[in-house]
């Protein structure tokens, strides 16, 4: 079975084709970063307007590049939530009607299920069960994954997502939008010993996170240290490094704890922040020291993309799930509300 995936939940248009026997056949992502940069954040109406211009041309491009005739597609998967409702509606409307016209089944995919199954596209793929850390600009969640559709939230952020804290702290440090990756670059030149930020909620049991305090701590540090700094460029790098160390440490501590509590040996990381080099280094060594294994999607599939939607959609379509002609994406959609896979068919 060969599935076309469409992702339009936020500010990336992602299209891909996944084949059950041949794996990923083609994929493309168009990012709207430049459109939203001058506003310092995603403007939902501008995002929707751009998706409706870009989605179909990108579908045509991906089919052409793969040299695949439309008749070879057996199903269409589109992101049905959670996300920006206007942006989701573009992908859902286009994906559902395209499947209708092709006479193939369609499936609405949960965006976070896409992220947490993304490492399964890679080789070697992790076997179930595993713990997933979903860490992006919109989410920080630890999930116990027993199988496709069998998810239990172990903990999540009570306020800002980790990626959001990266972006907000980057803004405090006057870094250009989107600041997360810029902050990580600046942190590479920072002295990890100069400042020490707190590790929120690690001094008590539980697997929830809180990152909004770190951003405030960064703001206070900037205000007290920068005016007195002999070398302000270095001081900003040192603050960025201290912030990054605190986030990474916190994520590592909670992941280690989640593996111990579940008894699982495998940890997968997904979402935009999982592309962070420092996080990967620290997580790999910490989990290896416990006798566990870490898995990641390739950096390109850490951020929003069509491949993960095509893959998650393929998992569900081949098990016989599909959607009626009605499409109704959801801005909010709890991961645990997803149905498990019952039947299983050959790929």
């Amino acid at each position, binding site marked *: 079975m060969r599935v076309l995936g469409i992702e339009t939940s936020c500010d990336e248009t992602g299209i891909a084709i996944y084949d059950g026997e041949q794996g990923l056949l083609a994929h493309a992502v168009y990012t709207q970063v430049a459109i939203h940069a001058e*506003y310092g954040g995603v*403007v939902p*109406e*501008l995002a*929707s*307007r751009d998706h*409706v*211009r870009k*989605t*179909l*041309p990108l*579908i*045509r491009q991906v089919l052409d590049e793969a040299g695949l005739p*439309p008749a070879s597609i057996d199903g269409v998967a589109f992101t049905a939530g959670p996300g920006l*409702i*206007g942006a989701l*509606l*573009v*992908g*859902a*409307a*286009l*994906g*559902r*009607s*395209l*499947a*209708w*016209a*092709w006479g193939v089944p369609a499936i609405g995919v949960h965006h976070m299920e896409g992220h947490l199954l993304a490492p399964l596209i890679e080789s070697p793929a992790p076997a179930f069960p595993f713990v997933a850390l979903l860490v992006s600009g919109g989410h920080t969640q630890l999930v116990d994954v027993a199988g496709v559709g069998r998810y239990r939230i172990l903990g999540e952020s009570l306020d800002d997502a980790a990626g959001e804290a990266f972006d907000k702290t980057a803004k405090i440090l006057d870094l250009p939008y989107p600041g997360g990756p810029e902050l990580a670059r600046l942190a590479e030149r920072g002295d990890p010993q100069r400042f020490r930020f707190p590790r929120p909620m690690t001094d008590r049991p539980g697997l929830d996170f809180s990152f909004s305090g770190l951003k405030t701590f960064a703001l206070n540090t900037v205000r007290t240290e920068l005016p007195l700094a002999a070398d302000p460029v270095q001081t900003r790098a040192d603050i960025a490094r201290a912030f990054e160390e605190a986030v990474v440490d916190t994520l590592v501590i909670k992941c280690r704890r989640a593996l111990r509590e579940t008894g699982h040996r495998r940890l997968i990381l997904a979402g935009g922040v999982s592309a962070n080099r420092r996080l990967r280094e620290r997580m790999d060594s910490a989990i290896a020291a416990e006798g566990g294994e870490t898995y990641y999607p390739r950096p390109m599939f850490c951020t929003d993309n069509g491949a993960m939607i095509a893959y998650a959609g393929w998992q569900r379509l081949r098990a016989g799930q599909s959607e*009626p*002609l*009605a*499409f*109704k*994406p959801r801005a909010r959609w709890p991961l645990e509300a997803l149905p498990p896979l019952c039947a299983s068919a050959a790929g």
Partner: protein
Amino acid sequence: MKLLAIDTSGDTCSAALLLDGGVEQLLETAPRQHGERILPMMQALLDGAGLLLTDLNALAFGRGPGSFTGVRIATAVIQGAAFGAGLPVVPVSTLGALAQGQFRRGGQRRLLTALNARMDEVYWGCFEIGEHDLAVAQGEERVCPPERIAIPAGAGWYGVGPGWSAYDLTLQTQVGDALDGANPAAFCEARDIAVLAAADFTAGRHLPPELATPVYLRDQVTR
């Protein structure tokens, strides 16, 4: 000529199948439920006529102005269906369809169309019913405060569309004696889009699906 048209630009959701001049329409009042209703309506029309999507010559849609989200739903549905079936697309003005609909119901031939654009503005377009009884735009469609509408020369104009109830007095004052009456209860319907689209298609005015995009009129969406 076989053509399927849809509109999801307002509170109603409609689909119409035009077959060699005759038009069959399905219409529902379904605010915020367009995504749930539109494809089943399109399927029902094709089933009723015993046709496949690929039997059609073209697909048409209300390209705006109207609800941003609603107009995008129609655009994306038609883009997907047209690409999937290998059909060309005819985007049609929702204001033009309003004018065409009023001619169909009341026979008026000089029409001032207004939709409520909120933020103290209207989407505004002037149309005359020309030869072949089709609405032809007189000047550009625009979004503006009701005090600043452009009024074409001459008398015997008739107001149509919900903008006339939202800005009743202002619009009447602006048009003055040139106004013969108004129907503020009128709304855009797919059957009128179909009629206008059939003429456009015959005249060669159609697009590949990826070039069929919304017309919002309001392009300032950030502060």
